[in-house]
Every structure is written in structure tokens, then in C-alpha cells.
């Protein structure tokens, strides 16, 4: 029988081994998860980096760009506002990575149950007997 402390520790251990990164190293994965959560709050809970890493391991996305970008982030973190300011004309590796990671994170978060429910308020994907269309009057 596990006591409470052992139970909590086991839970933390299971969470840690729940997913072993395939494309990134464990350290890169952890840093990427932190970066992506700043980009798209809620991404960590929706396991967005697991989705992205699996894709990278199978040729979806540029794994080297991720490794370079995450490496830059680990070497010297910059305020996200600074990176966002140069989003349309990135000049540095980290600024370029901002765009790469953001596109991938939005895609993965929108595809997650958490993103659909908590962000978009989506309740679709169900069987309807009729589609109501627009039921409101707008000017």
C-alpha cells in the first residue's frame, strides 16, 4: 500500500516517463515546452510538444531548425515581446524560431481536445439531426 507521499512521487515519475522525446533530447524538449507555453498558454497541458516532437521524428517539420532554435533559447532567453516585435522580419536564429515554433504550436493546440474546448469553445464533431446555421440577427 502506498502512502500519500509515495503516491505523489510515483505520479511525478509516471508523468516524467510518459513520453520520451524522439527527435529532441530531454533537455531540448523541456526547453521547447517552456518556450511553446509562453507562445500559446495551455500548450503544455495539451501536450503540444509531444505532438510536435513525434512529427519532427517522422519528417514533419525541420528538426534541425528546432534544435538550433531551442539551443539559442537555452543559451540566452530574451523577452517574448522582443521576439514578437521582429516576427515579420526575423534577423536572428531565435527570432526565426519564434515563427517556426508558433506556427507548429498553434496547429497542434488547435488539434488538441484542450485547445478545442478551452480556447476555441468548440463542441462539434457530434451527430446532429439538423444544422441550425446562423440563428442570430446581425446588423
Amino acid at each position, binding site marked *: 500500500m502506498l502512502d500519500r507521499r509515495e503516491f505523489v512521487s510515483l505520479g511525478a515519475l509516471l508523468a516524467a516517463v510518459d513520453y520520451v522525446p524522439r527527435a529532441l533530447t530531454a533537455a531540448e524538449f523541456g526547453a521547447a515546452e517552456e518556450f511553446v507555453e509562453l507562445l500559446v498558454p495551455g500548450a503544455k497541458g495539451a501536450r503540444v510538444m509531444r505532438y510536435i516532437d513525434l512529427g519532427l521524428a517522422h519528417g514533419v517539420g525541420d528538426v534541425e531548425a528546432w534544435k538550433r532554435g531551442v539551443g539559442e533559447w537555452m543559451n540566452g532567453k530574451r523577452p517574448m515581446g522582443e521576439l514578437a516585435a521582429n516576427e515579420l522580419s526575423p534577423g536572428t536564429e531565435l527570432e526565426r524560431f519564434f515563427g517556426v515554433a508558433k506556427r507548429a504550436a498553434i496547429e497542434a493546440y*488547435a488539434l488538441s481536445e484542450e485547445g478545442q474546448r478551452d480556447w476555441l469553445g468548440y463542441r462539434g464533431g457530434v451527430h446532429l439531426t439538423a*444544422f441550425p446555421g446562423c440563428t442570430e440577427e*446581425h446588423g
Partner: protein
Amino acid sequence: MAKEILDVVVVGSGPGGGIATYALCQQGLKVGLVEAGRRMIPGKDYNGHGSAHKDWEKRLAAGFKTPHWKVTDYQEKDHFVGVGDNPRHGLLKALGGRSLCWAGHTLRFGPGDFAQWPIGYDEVAPYYARAERMMGVSGFRDGLWNMPDGEFLPGVPMRCSERMLGKGVAKLRGKHREAAFVGIRKAMPSKGGAVPRATCHFCGHCMAGCEVDSKYTSANTPIPMAMKTGRLTVFLQSTVVRVLMSKDGARAEGVEIVRADGSREEIRCKALVLACSTVETARLLLAQGLANSSGQVGRNLTSHFGLTVVGLFPQVRGRDASNDDGWDYYHSMLSGMYWRDKAKKFEGTYQVQCGAGVHPKKMAIKWAPGFGESMKAQLKDWNVTHAGMNMQGMLLVSKNKFVDLDPVKRDALGMPLPRVHLHYDDSDLAMADDVIETCEEIIQLGGGTVHSSPGKATRENLVIDSNHWVGTARMGTDKKTSVVDLEGRCHDVANLFIGDASVFPAYPEKNPTLTNIALSWRMAERLAGRARRGEL
């Protein structure tokens, strides 16, 4: 014992081949249907109801790069050579062909469209009505003269931002522009009991493959009906590599097929129907120099082409956006453009398919500036309030668009690959510029703002519709300028018929499938009449 000679062999089981097979069997003929692909199982081979994240690893392991199990996963790759302005050619080898991955948009061509054909609207209208009943078409009666109403099940309403576009179009009409804004018409039963298929449950997966088989396909309606006659033999995973001809070259005697295991067989018949798709039918004819005394096989190629303009309508902010799935993205369309008052800067006309709403699996707008909660809020707001306008223009028929055979490249069976040549003409670009200007105006007249627009059409930003090709074996009365006669029978080979959209002699802006089905049904009945009279 001598091998059986079938009355008719139909090659290809897509929209045209499927209906021809049914019509021929129903008329009492023994038919062999040859299909290069296998039978797919809706819900198993494709199913958009799954979870992207849960299915992701399995999908990647299976070699796919996208998250949902779609029928379009199985479309052919490296099956043609594109020349020019980024031509594309959709090909799905499966029982039902590309009827498995069509959107279901079911529009009649109108009297104005048939004015350019050697047969009139009244000739085709009875086949439209029959096809609509069999397909289970849902739509509203709009009373448009050149896109006549059909036999419809109840229509499905528009989403809020689409209605804002409708307000914009009404104001455009007030400026004396010919235009209509109508609901889309789809071969998707909105009401139970009308056709022997599931009623639509509005999940929005139509083009990715309808996993409950509500959408009309050849595989779920006419082919099973043909099977019930007891007169149909289906040859699956069998690719036709040669049409067997009589020694004098005047008659088709059957086809040679190669099965998936590499074995070969000759299937003999009294009449042959090719319904392999516009590009593939032309390829088969060109490979053997058949039915081409006119030199028109592969010529007159056309399709639809387009671009997208997106608007935002702040009026609808705060609406209930919890379920915008519906009938896939497009619920509405701009129609009626230049039907009577012809454009001065380009030939032909266009329609614009319009959609709206939040669709997480394929969000219309995927980028907003910044990061964090404010970026998320902005992106959600844009998706909730947006409307997308997708041009579907008539591609000008010209010498710059055609199909021929690659002199070098061949497929795994040694057949030459088709080359699809597409070079946009100035008229095409002028039409696209008109669409951009008109869509932007409609958005603004509807009280919205333009979110994204190409601004100016270029050969690089136009997108060809890979599934709407028609015209490579066109119909006509003159054997010097056309490939088939008014029945769909080749001028040069008396018992060779064409049952797909390659016979279209002219192409309006409207989606081709209903007309493909109606014409193929008509062709099959003419063929059966000849069989009854002993003319085969």
C-alpha cells in the same frame, strides 16, 4: 468452353462509370466493371471523427504527414507530369473513384451554358432529375435561370458571416450588377428515408471522405444497385493497359487488364465504355492512337481555377460558435456573375464558393501577430467572424492547355505517363483580378473588412482545381473537330463510348459532377438502345 463475351465493359468506377454501370445493368445488359483500386471501407479506411493527437503516432508510423484518416490519403502520387503553371491532377484508385472525395456540390448547368453545346438543356434535364433523386440532393429553390432548381431535399442554412456576404451581394445588385448569393446544393440527404443511405449528421468531413456513407458516391449507391440486378461482374485492383481492337481497327473487342498480383487477363465485350477521368481517358486513347482522327484527343482541356479572399465581420462577434461543422466549409456561393452581361476584360464567368466558422481541424486563419493570451484571443476572434470566398472560374480553353504523353516517363506497368500542360492565358488573369475586386467590394458592402487578399492575380498565386478537369474527348457533330458524337460514342470506333467529363464540349463555372452523371446516364441508355436493336 469459349470465354464469355460481356455485353459491355466499363472502365473506371467514378461518378460517370458508376452511373453507367447501373444504367446498363438496369437495362438488362451483362456488364463488367473494371476498377484499378480496391474497395474502401468508410469509417475504417477513413474517419475524420478520430482524435488528431491520439491518432498521430499511428498516422506517422503509417507514413502519413497529416493528422486525420482521410480518403484523400490514398490519392495517387507521381502519376502524371505537370508542365507550366503548377498543374495538378487528382486521381483516386478505389471503387467509387473520386466520388469518394468530392465535396458533393451538385449544380445543374443552365440553358445559357448549354447554348454552347450541341445538345440543349431540355435534353439533359430529365437525367438531372433522375440523378438528383438517386443522389439525394439537398438545397434551396433559388429560381435562377441559368442554374435551375432541381428535385431537392430541404436545404441547409448558412452561417452568420456568410449571411453578411449575402447582404453585401444584395447591395452589389443594387448597383446594377448581375449577381446572386445562394445556399450550396449537395448530394447529402438532409432528411431520412429519401435515399437508401444514412442521413447527414453535419460533422463537416465531406471531402475527407464521409465515414457514415451519407454523401453520394458511386460505391455506395449505383454500384450496389447494379450488383442487385445479378448482371454485374466487378474486377477490382485491375488496371487496363490496352484496349483490344479488331484487326481492322474499327471496333473495340475488350480490354487487357493487369491485376495486383501481376497476372494478366483479357476481358471481351460487345461495347466498351471508358470512364477513367478526363486525363486518364485521354491517356489511354493517346497511348494507342484510338478515336483520334480529329487530333482532338487531349485537346480542349479545361478545369476551374481560383484564389481566396477572406473578410472579417465584426457584427457577428459574440455569436455562438460552438459548432460550425455543418456541411464542410462551404455553405453558400456567389453565382450569376456575367451570365447575361458579358465581361469586357475576359471570356467566361466564375462563381465563388463561400464558407465561414470555426473548424479546428482546418482553421481558416492560422496566424495572428504576437504571442500569449492576446494572440490566442485575436486568432479566435478572427476565425469566429471571418468569411472565406474561394473563386471557381472557367479556365479559358486554348492551345495552352492540353494533355499528351510523356515521351520518356512510364508508370510501373510500362504505360506512358500523361503530361498535363497548363499555361494561364491573359483572360484567366483578368478574370481572377475581377474576382478579387468583386469579393473585396462585397465584403465591404456587407459591413466587413478585408482580412487577406492576393491583391493582384499572378500565374504563381492561381490554384488549379485538380478534380475538375474536363474536355479532352469533346462531344460534337463534326468528326473533324470532336471525338464523340451526341450520344458519347466515338466517331472513329462505333462501339467505343466515353462516360466521363472528358466529353464536355464547353465548361461553365459550375461544378461538373452532376452533369457528368447525367450525361453518362444518357450515354448508357443510348448504348443500351443500340444493344436492344442489335446494333452492337
